[in-house]
């Protein structure tokens, strides 16, 4: 016999579910279906979508490249200040993205602490460039792959690594051929979360990199700008992001929600 759920819990749960679902439904209801093609071309959807995919993939690649070693240091390193380092790494999750953008601006902008030097010595200006959008996005989304991978590393049975090392494997070889394959599921889940977060990044990007179609205007920025001149177009752009997000959820299914 199935236990009956208390009515109060069911009622509150229904409110919670409806609260999340309603805006998504409203986007579908209010979308300008009759002039969909026109709305799509009017707001430059394909340009923004292509840039969004490029920027989010680049940000994910950088996040994995430096985030996985970071996770390894956090999980395996024995040094003072490790907890402090972890707090610093997680900080972008808690910070409002616009704060990240302002921080990047005073650090890497043309007059920033490091940016001034980059500009004067190498002639490099990151603001208003696609590279700048990638940096801003990476700042915001990297913690997710670090946290997921670190959790994976902590849960590993270390006897496999010790055995590999005992048989003469170098630390690099053991990391590559034993450790990495064993944390692959957590790493992959973390990378997907990082990518999803990167796809939705807005505040840090517009603050640091600006907003220019084809260069720094990713989908969320295009949605924001479209509101002013073409609210219907903004809905169409939003729907594209909804569809992508749902597709990711469906593809990954339980693997994503079963994380932890």
């Amino acid at each position, binding site marked *: 016999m199935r236990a009956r759920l208390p009515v109060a819990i069911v009622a509150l749960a229904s409110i919670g579910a409806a609260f999340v679902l309603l805006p998504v439904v409203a986007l579908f209801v209010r979308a300008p279906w009759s002039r969909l093609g026109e709305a799509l071309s009017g707001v430059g959807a394909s340009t923004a979508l292509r840039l969004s995919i490029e920027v989010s993939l680049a940000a994910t690649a950088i996040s994995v490249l430096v985030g996985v070693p970071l996770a390894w240091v956090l999980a395996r390193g024995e040094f003072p200040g490790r907890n402090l380092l972890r707090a610093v790494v997680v900080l972008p999750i*808690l910070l409002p993205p616009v704060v990240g953008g302002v921080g990047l601006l005073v650090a890497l902008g043309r*007059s920033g602490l490091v940016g001034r030097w980059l500009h004067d010595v190498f002639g490099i*200006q990151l*603001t208003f460039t696609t590279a700048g959008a990638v940096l801003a996005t990476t700042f915001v989304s990297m913690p997710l792959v670090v946290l997921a991978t670190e959790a994976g590393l902590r849960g590993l049975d270390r006897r496999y690594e010790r055995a590999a090392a005992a048989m003469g494997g170098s630390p690099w070889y053991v990391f590559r051929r034993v450790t990495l394959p064993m944390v692959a599921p957590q790493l992959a889940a973390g990378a997907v979360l990082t990518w999803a977060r990167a796809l939705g990044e807005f505040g840090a990007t517009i603050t640091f990199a600006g907003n220019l179609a084809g260069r*720094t205007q990713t989908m969320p920025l295009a949605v924001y*700008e479209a*509101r*002013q001149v073409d609210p219907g177009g903004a809905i169409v752009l939003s729907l594209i992001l909804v569809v992508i997000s749902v597709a990711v959820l469906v593809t990954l299914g339980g693997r994503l929600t079963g994380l932890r």
Partner: protein
Amino acid sequence: MLAVRRAAVLFAVAVVSVGCSSSSTSTSSAAATTPLTVFAASSLTKAFTQIGQDFHTADPDVTVTFDFGSSTDLASQILSEGTADVFGSASGTAMDTLQSAPGVTDRTNFATNRLVIITPPDNPAGVTSVNDLARSGVKLVLAAEGVPVGDYARQALKNAGILAQATANVVSNEDDDASVVAKVTSGDADAAIVYTSDVASAGNTVRSVPIPSAVNVIATYPIAVVGGSAYPDQAKAFLDYVVGPTGQATLATFGFGPPSG
């Protein structure tokens, strides 16, 4: 790990409370006063904040809260949500969109503004005239199309005959006037086109380059009481205060011209 989590929670609380305290620009927190909500163009931020404080001093029973942003954006918010009592717009077009619904009353022009070029103080691209904005490699920031100051700026560039070359130099289309200024004060943009009132507000964090009258665009600012306001009398009083001598003097201090142009 527990320590980290506790620190994280503390930090999150700090962030949230900072976010809350800065999100509204209410001039007083007295409980029994009439809360008047004024939507106003981003370019009016400093002038209206001052006028709001003066108005509250003159009439302590009314507390004015502002929502500053792009006039186009604010107009569409009023259209869909109708939460404003007074709307001070940077363009007649944005005000026009409210004419039929929810309707506006006592509409009157209360200020004018002109366009000016701003550069960082060290003027890295050597911009000395409007024609320099057409020079290849100048990093120009404008407000997006649809934002009044963005449309006015494009009109001025068109008047100068350099619209195509200058828009090819645009590195960012910002969402409102204040964001455009921020890109220059941070030193990242070489030049931007904003209102003369922005220069009065920004002080020596920017350098200004005049745009000749022949190609300049005069922005006329209308103000009106929004239909359906819960406090129409107080809204009218605020409007009269803005149009009256004290409001006009404050607007002049912040670089605005008189409504006649």
